[in-house]
Each structure stands twice: as C-alpha cells, then as structure tokens.
C-alpha cells in the first residue's frame, strides 16, 4: 500500500498545526461559529445532535494493521470504545470532544492518516472496490489512480470551495463493486490491447434528493491526461454549478441543466486549453505510485481445496460462512474474506476497539498486514490462505465478526440516522435491528439469496437507499417517523434506481411489510431467480397489491 514520503508527512503535520490553531482561535472567540464551521468541515468535524462527529479518511478503504490499531486506540482514548465504518469506506467517531480533535489528528498523522476533506463542499475521500488488487475479475488495479487523485485533490487551490460536496469513485474490475454510476465522477480504469492504461469517465451520477445514474462523457482517455481532464470538469462545475439552493447544487443538476452534450462540449473546450499542461501525468509518476501497490510476494502454497471441502462437510456453519463471506482471489491458494459487522443488536458498521485490534492481528497472522473497509460497512481481509480459513473463522466467531450474511438480507447498509445525525428525519438503526431480529432463520435467509437492503434516515441518502434492492427512507410526517419503501434499485454493472411502492409505514409495521415483500418474491420466483431478477420480470405491481391489500 501507499507509504508517505517526507512531502506527505510534512503536509499532514502542517495541516494538524493549522487545524489546532483554528480550533484554538474558535475556542478563544476569535472565529465565529459560521467561520469555524467551514474550516472544521474541511477537516471532517461535524457538530452533531449529541456530540461532535469526526470522520477519519481511510483513503480508498485501505488500512494497515498498524493504522487499524491506532484507530482502536483513538476509539478507546478519545471516544467510547468504538468507531463506525461509513458507506464511504471511512471511520467515524461519534463522541470526541471538540478540544481533543487536534490531538486525535496528531495521533492519526503518526500512522500516516488524516481527516482532510472528509466533509464540506470539496472533493471527498476517493472510494474504490474493496477487493482492488486481489479480485479475480480485475482488469487494472484502481488504487494507484485513487492515490494520484488523493494527492491532487488535497487542498487544491481552486477546487476546495465548490458549490457542494464532490465524490469520485474508481473501479478497475469487470464487476463494479464501487458504485461508480452513482458518483459525481465515476472512473473505470483498464488496459487496452496494447497494454496502454485508459480511463472511461462518467459524470453526474448521485443519490440524495434527486437520484441519477451518471453518463459517460469520455471513453478511452489515456491515463496521463487524468488530472487535466478532471481539472476541466471541476472548473466547469465550480463556475457554473448552482450555489443558490443546496439541494440543486450537485454536478448532476448542472449536467441536466446543460444537457449531456452541452456539458461535454463545455468540458472539452476547457480541456483543449489544459491538455499537455504541466499537470499532465508523467510515465515516471504513474510508475512511482504504481510501485506502492505491487502485489506482495505470495508464497507458493497448496490450493487448499481438498481440505476446505472436508472442513465444510464436517461443519455446516463454517460452510455457510465460506459460501457467503469468502470470495475468490486471483492467486491460487488464497481467498478474500469479508468480516461482517451486521450482527443483530449492533448498529451496522459499528466496531469496538477490541474488534479492531483482533482484525489487525488476523491481518498480520493470515495476510500481509492489510485490511480493507467495504462501502457495505464490513471489514475485508484481502490475502487469507485457503488453508487458514477455518482458523480465521473460529477466531472471528469469538469476536462476533463471523456472521455468514454477506450480500444477504441482514447485511444491511445503514446510515447513523436519527440516533446520531442532526440531518436525519428518522432513526435508521432500530429499523435495521428490527429486520435482523425478525429474519434470524439462516435457512430462510440463504434460501432468499442475495438481497440488498439499504436504509437512509433522510434524503441525503448516506445509506444509499435508492440503489438497494429494497430501499428504505426515513421521512417525517407531522413530527412522526415514517418509512418509505422502494424496490428494484441496484448498484454495480446494472445500476438502477428503486421505484417507490406507495405510502410510507410506521416503524412498527416495517418487519411485517418486509415479510410480505419477501413472500411475494418467493411465490413468484422462477427457478433460481434472485430477488432483483424476479422484480425486473414482474415489476412493482404484484408487490404493491399485496402490501396495500394486507395493510387495509
């Protein structure tokens, strides 16, 4: 993974000093609330319902075991012993003291981490495929380009004060696990037949109040032009994006207003002035950054398949876990393991300091000391020898990180919601918990197959409800918390936005309504159809009928 050089160390150290001084001036009354708000938001600090929330950047979701131990220590020393994995692959702390934040940043800087641009109207932490570098279906490792974009976007002179937040995602695999279609900019990197690095650029996707699937504005851009092309897009957005209404300020609204063609022309005209300028990447710089992401020397080991089959036969619980939580690795004898945080009774994505330390230990014992955070709010161990899966599973069971539910109904994506967030209309965590409690029969869950339930507590859509196969949105009805359900959303290669079924439901009704939806699916599915496939074949009507007939 990437390692800081002296340049990075110095920049982050200066950022800590700068932020410490700003905090001091705010506490001394020299900066107003409004002035400090914009400054602290450039450094991940929100003032929430109960306490400040600090969002720590985990660049493209990659962590070392050393870094994860430091995050555990911060949870213990400055918070209440836990942290929260966000849907943007970051780590959030819900209970730090405002005055302690500079010390937290200093602790982070020691392990090459920061909270720069994790909130505010600027370019946010770049996200990618949690299986990057190890996925069997990868065309080109996206992480070097994420790092190049991280450096370029850090305190950019021109693009740190945008109309609205700006999210970039990069994928390099056949199967898109980074949801690039629903980002302000989505990049698909790959090699052409001559081995040249190319990138397809999508723009204007997003969730929130106006969900949109992004459109391709450039295909086959040679990688050296990545930054100048991004610069052209950002300049058009920074100049012409709306600033009068925060709900119309995202780039998707600008793209719609100008039209796809009009926007492309504007960007191309701007880029014609920038093409070949000094920000053009050099082959040396690309190889320098790529060198950090060279695959480790994988010791040649037995593929482990025979003994794994035996272990699975002997232990059905282990077998279930392998079936759902273990993905293929590009090197024979290794596997990619997802450690699910979606255990009933625990808010999705919440992890304790001890769990973090345990995961760090496993990354050292069964890998090369590397951990990923998935946007589905789970941990991933990327390089586990197949022969060690059983030992890892036993330890994960003890630590409550072995729920065999990755991709299943109970692997719910959920924002912090009204329990923590001051923007929320409704709580989201108790809904997730009620669903997990109601559907706790593994055989039923496995029979249902892959179903994504995504829950957001408000229109800002941090829980990505639009792209859940079943999406749940908290709404406020005359001061009461209600939940609107949409069906048929999907993130990935076949992105789609869910369709709302109809009037919303109270929290107490939700598990029953879910049961009806699942029942309709089970009755209508043909052969091995997944929920999404059945939905796409039969449409929303059969679901609607059953839900509202029963509700009457």
């Amino acid at each position, binding site marked *: 993974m990437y390692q800081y050089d002296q340049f990075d160390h110095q920049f982050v150290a200066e950022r800590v*000093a700068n932020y410490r001084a700003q905090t001091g001036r705010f506490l001394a009354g020299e900066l107003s609330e409004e002035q400090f708000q914009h400054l602290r938001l450039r450094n991940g600090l929100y003032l929430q319902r109960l306490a400040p929330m600090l969002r720590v950047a985990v660049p493209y979701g990659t962590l070392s075991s050393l870094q994860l131990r430091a995050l555990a220590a911060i949870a213990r020393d400055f918070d209440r012993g836990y942290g929260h994995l966000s849907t943007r692959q970051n780590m959030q702390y819900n209970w730090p003291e405002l005055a302690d934040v500079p010390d937290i940043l200093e602790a982070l800087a020691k392990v090459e981490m920061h909270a720069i641009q994790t909130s505010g109207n600027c370019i946010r932490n770049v996200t990618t495929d949690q299986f990057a570098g190890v996925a069997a279906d990868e065309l080109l490792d996206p992480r070097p380009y994420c790092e190049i974009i991280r450096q370029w976007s850090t305190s950019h*002179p021109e693009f740190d004060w945008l109309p609205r937040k700006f999210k970039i995602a990069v994928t390099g695999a056949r199967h898109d696990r980074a949801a690039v279609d629903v980002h302000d900019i989505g990049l698909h990197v790959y090699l052409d037949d001559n081995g040249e690095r190319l990138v397809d650029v999508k723009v204007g996707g997003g969730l929130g109040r106006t969900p949109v699937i992004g459109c391709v504005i450039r295909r086959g851009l040679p990688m050296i032009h990545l930054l100048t092309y991004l610069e052209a897009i950002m300049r058009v957005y920074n100049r012409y994006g709306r*600033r009068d209404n925060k709900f119309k300020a995202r780039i998707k609204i600008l793209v719609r207003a100008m039209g796809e063609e009009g926007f492309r022309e504007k960007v191309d005209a701007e880029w014609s002035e920038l093409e070949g300028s000094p920000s053009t990447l050099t082959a040396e710089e690309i190889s320098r950054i790529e060198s950090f992401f060279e695959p480790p020397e994988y010791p040649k080991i037995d593929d482990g398949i025979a003994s794994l089959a035996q272990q699975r036969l002997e232990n059905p619980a282990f077998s279930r876990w392998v079936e759902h939580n273990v993905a293929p690795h590009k090197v024979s004898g290794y596997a990619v393991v997802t450690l699910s945080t979606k255990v009933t009774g625990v808010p999705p994505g919440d992890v304790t300091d001890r769990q973090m330390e345990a995961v760090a230990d496993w990354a050292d014992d069964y890998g090369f000391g590397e951990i990923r955070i998935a946007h589905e709010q789970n941990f991933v161990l990327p390089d586990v020898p197949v022969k060690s899966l059983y030992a890892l599973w036993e330890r994960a069971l003890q630590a409550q990180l072995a729920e065999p539910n990755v991709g299943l109904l109970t692997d719910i994506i959920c924002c912090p919601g009204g329990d923590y967030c001051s923007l929320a209309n409704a709580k989201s965590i108790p809904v997730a918990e009620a669903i997990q409690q109601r559907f706790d029969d593994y055989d039923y869950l496995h029979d249902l197959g892959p179903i994504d339930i995504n829950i957001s507590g408000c229109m800002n859509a941090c829980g990505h409800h639009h792209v859940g196969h079943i999406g749940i949105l908290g709404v406020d009805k005359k001061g009461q918390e209600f939940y609107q359900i949409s069906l048929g959303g999907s993130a990935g290669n076949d992105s789609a936005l869910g369709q709302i079924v109809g009037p919303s439901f109270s929290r107490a009704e939700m598990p029953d309504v879910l049961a009806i939806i699942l029942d309709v699916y089970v009755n209508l599915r043909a052969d091995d159809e997944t929920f999404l496939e059945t939905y796409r074949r039969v449409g929303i009507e059969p679901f609607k009928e059953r839900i509202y007939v029963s509700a009457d």
Partner: protein
Amino acid sequence: MSALIEFDQVSGLLRGTERGPVALTLLAAEEWTPESEAGLLLAVDDELQPQFANASLIAVEFPSFHDGRGLSLAVLLRTRLGYTGELRAVGDVHPDLIHYLRRCGFDSFLLPEGRQVGLEDAVLAPYSDYYQASVVEPHPAFRRSRRIAHFGDR
C-alpha cells in the same frame, strides 16, 4: 477599519500594509473601458473579456468567503487572459483562505472589518508546499526536484 494585505515580491511574504484600502475608483465590467483610469471590479460570475488584460487593477468581489467561483475566475484571468497587473480579493475575504486565493493568482486581499485577527504567517501561509500546480507554482510536486529527491526516502 478594513485591512489590506499584499504579497511582497521581494520577501515572498504576505504583509499587512499601511496604505489601507486604496482610493482607486473601481468600475463594474459594464461601465469599465480599457481607457478608464479606474480599476475593474468583477463579480465572481463575470465572464472573461479580452480587454480585461489591460486593466490597471482588477478586484474580484467575493459574496461569501466560501464561494469558490472567484478562485476559478482568478486562475482564468492569470492563465487564459495573461493578466499581469494587481489582482485583489475584496468582499467577504477570510484570512484562513488567503493561501488558496494566493495560489489562484491574487496578490492583494482587502479584509472586511473585524477580520484582522490572526494575520500571522501561520494563518496566511500555513503550508510550505502543495501537491498541485497553481498559478504561482506552475509545476505539480511530482515534476519538481524537491519531491523527486525524496523518492525512495520513505
């Protein structure tokens, strides 16, 4: 009273100045002509016009300190139009953002009343170097010897 901060070419530092808000008259783009003695006052959403390059002074007015349009306008004035005269940020200018303004080509900054606190170097120039190219540093760090020399020094 308002405070003017200027970039000192000799020392390379930003300094508060005694000259105060300069009395030069400013005219908005609709009224200004290349013949006028007055400086040119631009709104952040004004489009570029070639004759702007001849202005004696251009001031860009920030409606709020966190409105970044003035940053792009400054970059275009410097790099697209080749304007070399004084480029001043006026309006809701914040000391903590001067390091962005400076890198986009502004060289003087008129702070509104009550914003004079905290004008030490730590506020005005908190970083010794940046990753990207900018108006004042046309080469990104990866093309400069300083970064290249550190390559391998991890």
